[in-house]
């Protein structure tokens, strides 16, 4: 009982989502310390293809379990969650963890509801204190972190994207097919009629070397457009804070922080960003941090290696002007 920990391996169209490998890093350590086995769980319609994924050979886990059935071809929330619920009832895992992807965030609550267990969100650190697994996330108040625990088993959480660095396994995990009981009903109340791939580049934010991040201090959408131009010149990726997403200026994929992605570039420059903890937890591991802000007292100014006290929009304009002069 409670001998395994399950990590959800999000597998789509022949690819494993890298965030599924990220969450293995802290979970493997916890499994080792508790003497449990970490299982990476994949759901697919094509066992052979999934099994031969090169990433799996280096995945930091003890076992890879693959549930395979033709009905799993498309991601259907009800059926996918039912598989994991059934599997959890049979295997009694100590924990079931998900990356905070679209799938993870829609599956985990269905499973937690059915199993009547707790589910933590925005977890960006995990620690064992004795036998107690503590999950860390920011909470209300200035720069306040809360550690949480769950009174129910399996312990469940969705882990922030990019919060953990992928580590390779020196050994290969054992890969096997997981057979669902014969009485399992492969039924769903959903049918995918059409699927149109989003024409967007996969976000490179989490692996970017240089990140230019924009906040409310940019003041206008035009300034954000200029920041994007500057990013092109510097071959950087653009990130934003949450209010810019809410304003509809940027997509959520570009949001840096606990509810978005974590970044760890060589250089991070924050333009007009105050430095709320929900944001800084997603960028504090950057090698060199520069803050551009009119307010010397802003938390990001305090934590930055270097701060430029001036108007963010004007600075971007000057940078663009001077850089274009240089390249001509």
């Amino acid at each position, binding site marked *: 009982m409670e001998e395994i920990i399950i990590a959800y391996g999000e597998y789509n169209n022949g690819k494993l989502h890298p965030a599924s490998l990220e969450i293995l890093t802290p979970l493997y350590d916890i499994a080792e310390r508790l003497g449990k086995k970490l299982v990476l769980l994949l759901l697919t319609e094509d066992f052979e293809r999934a099994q031969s994924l090169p990433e799996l050979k280096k995945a930091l886990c003890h076992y890879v379990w693959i549930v395979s059935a033709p009905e799993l071809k498309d991601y259907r929330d009800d059926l996918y969650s039912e598989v994991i619920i059934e599997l959890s009832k049979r295997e009694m895992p100590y924990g079931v963890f998900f990356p905070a992807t679209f799938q993870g965030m829609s599956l985990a*609550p269905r499973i937690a509801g059915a199993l009547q267990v707790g589910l933590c969100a925005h977890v960006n650190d995990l620690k064992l204190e004795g036998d107690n697994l503590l999950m860390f996330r920011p909470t209300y108040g200035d720069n306040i972190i809360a550690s949480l625990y769950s009174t129910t088993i399996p312990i469940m959480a969705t882990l922030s994207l990019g919060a953990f660095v992928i580590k390779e396994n020196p050994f290969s995990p054992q890969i096997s097919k997981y057979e669902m009981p014969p009485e399992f009903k492969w039924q769903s109340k*959903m049918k995918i009629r059409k699927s149109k791939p*989003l024409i967007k580049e996969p976000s490179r934010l989490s692996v970017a070397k240089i990140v230019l991040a924009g906040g409310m201090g940019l003041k206008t959408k035009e300034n954000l457009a200029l920041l994007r131009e500057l990013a092109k010149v510097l071959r950087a990726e653009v990130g934003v804070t949450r209010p810019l997403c809410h304003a509809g200026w940027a997509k959520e994929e570009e949001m840096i922080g606990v509810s978005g992605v974590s970044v760890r570039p060589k250089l991070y420059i924050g333009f007009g960003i105050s430095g709320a903890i929900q944001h800084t937890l997603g960028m504090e591991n950057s090698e060199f941090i520069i803050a551009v802000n009119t307010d010397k007292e802003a938390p990001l100014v305090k934590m930055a290696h270097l701060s430029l006290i001036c108007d963010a929009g004007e600075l971007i304009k000057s940078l663009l002007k001077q850089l274009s002069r240089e390249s001509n």
Partner: protein
Amino acid sequence: MDKVIVCIKGVPKPGTVKVDPETHTLKRESAELILNPMDRSALEMAMRLKDKYNCEVVVITMGPPNAVPLLREAYSLGADKMILLSDRLFAGSDTLATSRVLARAISNLKPFSLVLMGLKSIDGETAQVPPETASLLGLPSVTNVKQISVEGEKVIVVRETDYSEEEIEVDLPAVLSVTPYLDYYRPPSFKRMLEARKLDPLILSAQDLALPEELLGLKGSPTQVHSVFEKKIMERGEIWEGSPEELAKRLIDLLKEKEIFKN
């Protein structure tokens, strides 16, 4: 399509929030509540369905009595019935305990076709309540829905995932969480606004919902706070002041030195 239920949430108005220094939870009773902005989408979608299918729209919120104005706001947008789930026993609920209350209240409104909610709330950002409530009701859930239409006993929705935009056929009843980005939001009707002032919501307590105390509130929440602490900021920075032109020049020199910009 006869009945659509919309779950909305009051969130503290930014700037008015007081945080309990001991527990670091929000003091919801003292805060001025506004409608969670993302729930506007759920209400707008419900009204579009009402326009098209002439269905009844019931709006539910779980919260303290100061959430009543939000229900009236929903009424002024076109909701037909207002229900407030309010009880001291609900305070401190995590997403599971909240979903239990919502699921029970929704279940009592059977038969219904759809339950709509915003994608997430801006104070919690977990996005858990819609799928969790659906799961407790034994219903399918679809998240981040952009479009809804009805074909017989099925609802056709368009959702955006991390990979694609999908058109999905879902059996009714179903729980949908709606994208925060719609192209249009109708303004409230002045006439209904005046009407709403004189209307009170139906108020339901834990007892009315026949929910046992041990499943509710802080006590009924399996996620518990172990401790809270302040993360110290390391002050390490150098500060540059000057005109944007000067600072831009110094920054470019620094970037060159760090070999980030080469010409």
